């Protein structure tokens, strides 16, 4: 039987951008998860949402995986990027689009004003 940590690694492999969240991208069940969904959608990023409310082992396991106590958690190419505040700050400064571009993830680069 695969451990929960293996299961999380499995979720992260094969998809460039993965969001562990409460609810689904179509129906977020938490405002913080919803904010990250809005940002990723705005940037036109293709990503997989993993609903931690559907699996309590994943919900606890992902906190141990990243040593990060809260949900949502955004991963790009298997690496933990941050939670809601970090993703929002990176989005606001334009760093998120730059970072995704550097990682080879296709997204809309916002126009500079």
């Amino acid at each position, binding site marked *: 039987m695969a451990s929960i940590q293996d299961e999380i690694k499995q979720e992260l492999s094969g998809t460039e951008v993965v969001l562990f969240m409460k609810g689904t991208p179509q129906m977020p069940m*938490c405002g*913080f998860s919803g904010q990250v969904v809005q940002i990723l959608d705005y940037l036109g990023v293709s990503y997989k949402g993993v609903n931690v409310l559907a699996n309590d082992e994943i919900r606890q396991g992902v906190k141990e995986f990243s040593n*990060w*106590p809260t949900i949502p958690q955004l991963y790009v190419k298997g690496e933990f990027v*941050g939670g809601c*505040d970090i993703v929002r*700050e990176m989005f606001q400064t334009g760093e998120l689009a730059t970072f995704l571009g550097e990682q080879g993830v296709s997204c809309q680069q916002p126009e500079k004003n």
Partner: protein
Amino acid sequence: MSVKERIQGKLSAALAPLTLEVIDDSHKHAGHIGHPGSGHPGALSSTETHFTVKVVSAAFTGKTRLARHRAVNEILAEDLRGGVHALAIEARAPGE
């Protein structure tokens, strides 16, 4: 001591912040899963569940956002395992 006071005390002691603001957002989340009185199973016993922390400290100079947030999470680890359900963090170094 309230949870808010405990959070303020721990962050002050650990980070010697230039400015520190701890905001209790719990009232905005009444009815949220986990909130007392929400009727959800596993609802928390404390009414102080959601906080925003705004902190400016020289301890953050030269640190990445992840490192700053990890530092705050670490200082408040016990509270996050207990009743604190959500913690928004704004961590800046002086001059940012």
